[in-house]
């Protein structure tokens, strides 16, 4: 048993949990405390994306590793920064984790195990691998992206918009050198087309535990437009 624990611990130290946070003063403390109690041994880093609330202060008081972005740059740039940090510090895997409490640290080990056992380059924490999607507008969008990716790459991604994903080092290195790549469905599809392997693990998620989502109706429309345009038009020319 001790040997197995040792194996697990050494595995965990190769994984970086990246937590982008923008004005998450209501949630960040709970997220950090839960991570420390449920998934100890995992390194994590918070990318404080130019928050103007108390997010930075709270992280400092909790003694977390923080990358402070001097201005708000958005999720993609925050993610790329974390990917560079992970590569520079020799991590084998990086897991994208929400600051708002939607993601459950119980599943971190499952993502890592899946990556190690299957050798997948990307592992997605999917809400819909064994569970059916409901009929809300959001899920209509998600279904359309799933169908489109299936048509373009031949692979079924049950939860393409999940923000709970593990990336292995080869993928992180791609993010290091190409900043047109984002942590979004269109890049996942591009990786699939280029022969990287993507697998999924069933997870459950919660509602956000406080604060406000950055996705309003206008941004959601822009998001869908960008994903569809990239998948349908732009990627032909890449």
């Amino acid at each position, binding site marked *: 048993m001790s040997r197995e624990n040792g194996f697990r611990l050494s595995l965990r130290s190769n994984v970086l949990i990246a937590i982008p946070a923008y004005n998450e003063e209501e949630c960040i403390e709970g997220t950090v405390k839960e991570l420390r109690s449920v998934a100890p041994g995992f390194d994590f880093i918070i990318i404080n994306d130019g928050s103007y609330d108390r997010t930075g202060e709270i992280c400092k008081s909790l003694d977390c590793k923080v990358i402070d972005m*001097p201005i708000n740059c958005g999720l993609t740039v925050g993610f790329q920064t974390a990917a560079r940090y992970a590569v520079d510090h020799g991590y084998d895997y990086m897991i994208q984790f929400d600051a708002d409490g939607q993601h459950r640290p119980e599943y971190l080990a499952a993502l890592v195990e899946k990556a190690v056992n299957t050798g997948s380059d990307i592992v997605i924490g999917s809400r819909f691998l064994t569970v059916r999607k409901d009929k809300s507008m959001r899920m209509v969008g998600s279904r359309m992206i799933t169908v489109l990716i299936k048509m373009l790459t031949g692979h079924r991604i049950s939860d393409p918009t999940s923000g709970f994903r593990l990336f292995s080092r080869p993928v992180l290195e791609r993010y290091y050198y*190409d900043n*047109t790549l984002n942590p979004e469905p269109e890049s996942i599809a591009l990786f699939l087309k280029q022969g990287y392997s993507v697998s999924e693990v069933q997870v459950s998620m919660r509602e956000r535990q406080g604060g406000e989502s950055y996705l309003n109706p206008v941004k959601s429309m822009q998001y869908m437009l960008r994903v569809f*345009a990239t998948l349908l038009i*732009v990627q032909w020319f*890449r």
Partner: protein
Amino acid sequence: MSFTLRILLIVFAVIVFYFVIRKLKKAQMQVLDSLFWLLFSTSFVLLGIFPEIAVHIAGLLGFMSASNFVFLYVIAVLVVRDFTISLRLAKQEERLNSLVQAAALNWNSNDFRSSNDD
């Protein structure tokens, strides 16, 4: 609508397509921007191939000729585009300023310390 204008529209569309695709390949253009140019030049092709569209709308709006409508269409779209670009530019300048300020304060913070100690 004159034959020359129709040919010119299609030629311009091809040129725009060529440059947009080149920039996309080099990853020097954002997706939503490229989408604007691709759709805009597609509309040139449509107007060039089916001049009836322009003739019909010009008739509805009471224009002297179809080509006048085409000119107005192009100018109107580009004016809107110019407006949004100038908003984006202003935002970029603001961001650049705060970035430079953050970098300057960061680089010089050691000097402030030591001069206070003296």
